[in-house]
């Protein structure tokens, strides 16, 4: 045997499958990962500092830019925190619109996550394109509602920026009618795909205890067998009036995380269905002053974003802009235990594990 020695490889920040600019410093023995460390901050844009210079209403567009794949959820979390801080009551109709929007966004975000995960596995483009096709339909709906495809600025403190247009309903109903069949197809083709199973089953196992201890949330936590979903555990908006189930995994490996998203899309469809049925008429926005000046104090509001618990911790000093605007970013915190997941696996597994955690660097670095 020739003498060998471990060597270091920089995966990223420019790399086809690090989902933006994640950089991993890997110590490899041949192909096996001996040590790994994420190096973050390549997309840091100091958004928390930026928010301290803006009025409360102006903070919403900046949240769009964090998790740019689920901007609706970012808007929602921020609006909830501001409402909690300032004691604003939201009209009934607005809460339903918010739920419909954030669930559509969840489907769009999960579609993208599934597609890129399969792309990372080397399925050359085909699954990605199919999932993007579905996502496009949702983005079209969003464009119709608020005029933007990625950065919506739609959910505002006190409600939403404008009512749903009448053309919205037939389009969503069409999507709701067509998507389940597509989802069945994807499940049929992907669930028992031999290569997909070989690449994901038993890879990157996130043990239940570690997942809880490392503050993992969202599909990453649920795949490890913890039925913890903010929508169930601490319902916001109108989730307490809607029937849905929380899929839970068993092993906590990449396959479970992958399947979690597939099942959650189905639940989201049922939520949208119910919310559309229950959607009450009325106001969609409470009268909220342009410049909100909450009482001094702090508030923490959290929602279940597609990637996990998205929390906003706002501190007010009584002024027009927040004194402190902290975002509990699920992607960032889900990366905490990344090293424990990676060590011992092969280089090719690294991209699968990172892809299965589904990070968006805009939110990790903020």
């Amino acid at each position: 045997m020739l003498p060998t020695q471990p060597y270091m490889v920089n995966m990223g920040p420019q790399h086809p499958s690090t989902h933006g600019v994640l950089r991993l410093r890997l110590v490899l023995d041949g192909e096996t990962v001996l040590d790994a460390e994420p190096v973050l901050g390549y997309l840091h844009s100091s958004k928390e500092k930026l928010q301290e210079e803006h009025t409360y209403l102006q903070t919403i567009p900046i949240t769009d830019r964090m998790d740019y794949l689920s901007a609706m959820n970012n808007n929602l979390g921020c609006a909830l925190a501001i409402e909690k801080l300032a004691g604003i009551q939201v009209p009934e109709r607005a809460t339903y619109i918010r739920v419909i929007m954030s669930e559509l966004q969840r489907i769009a975000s999960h579609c993208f996550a599934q597609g890129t995960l399969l792309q990372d596995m080397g399925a050359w483009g085909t699954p990605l394109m199919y999932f993007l096709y579905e996502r496009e339909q949702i983005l079209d709906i969003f464009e119709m509602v608020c005029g933007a495809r990625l950065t919506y600025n739609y959910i505002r403190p006190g409600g939403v920026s404008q009512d749903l247009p009448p053309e919205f309903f037939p389009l969503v109903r069409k999507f709701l009618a067509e998507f389940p069949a597509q989802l069945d197809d994807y499940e049929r083709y992907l669930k028992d795909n031999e290569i997909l199973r070989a690449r994901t089953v038993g890879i990157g196992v996130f043990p239940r205890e570690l997942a809880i201890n490392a503050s993992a949330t969202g599909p990453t936590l649920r795949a490890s067998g913890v039925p913890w979903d903010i929508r169930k555990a601490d319902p916001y908006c109108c989730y307490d009036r809607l029937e849905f189930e929380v899929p839970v995994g068993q092993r906590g490996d990449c396959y479970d995380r992958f399947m979690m998203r597939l099942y959650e899309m189905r639940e989201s469809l049922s939520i949208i269905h119910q919310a559309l049925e229950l959607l009450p008429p009325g106001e969609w926005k409470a009268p909220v002053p342009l410049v909100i000046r909450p009482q001094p104090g702090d508030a923490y509001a959290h929602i279940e974003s597609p990637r996990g618990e998205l929390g906003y911790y706002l501190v007010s000093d009584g002024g027009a802009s927040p004194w402190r605007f902290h975002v509990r970013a699920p992607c960032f915190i889900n990366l905490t235990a990344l090293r424990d997941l990676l060590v011992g696996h092969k280089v090719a597994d690294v991209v699968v594990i990172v892809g299965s955690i589904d990070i968006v660097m805009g939110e990790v670095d903020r």
Partner: protein
Amino acid sequence: MTRALTGAELAEAIQRSFPSSVVETQREAVVVAREAVRDICFYLKESPELDFSMLTSVTAVDYVDYFEVVYHLVSLSRNQSAILKARAPGRADPWVPSVVPVWQGADFQERETWDLLGVRFDGHPSLRRILLWDGFPGHPLRKDFLEFDHRTVPAATEPQGLS
């Protein structure tokens, strides 16, 4: 519905095991003496009637006179949440004990807080900058960090750590 423990309830639970460590009881939160933070966190996590198994979030707020470190805890089994705060006075070297030995989830968040606010977490296994680069002057989320001259900021260097 997650039941948020009120400050009084949490203060009572803490005072049973750690008398005289509660500094202030707020409506939703309890401010504790910073020296006792790690022990209190251990207690909150391990005691069966509280069982705060997950640390949702750690962050800090700059109140000019002091830094307030805020811990959001959640108990998955009892569906309860609690907010714990600790104050670190002074601007030169504000510190609180690190809770990484209690919850691994505090690791990156404490590093981020150190990076952006300059609150030192005593006992953190590797308290390095995480979002900014080594050699960055100051901590940008502090209220006295008003501007920085990018011409004088040293270039990014390789982060230390792995060998």
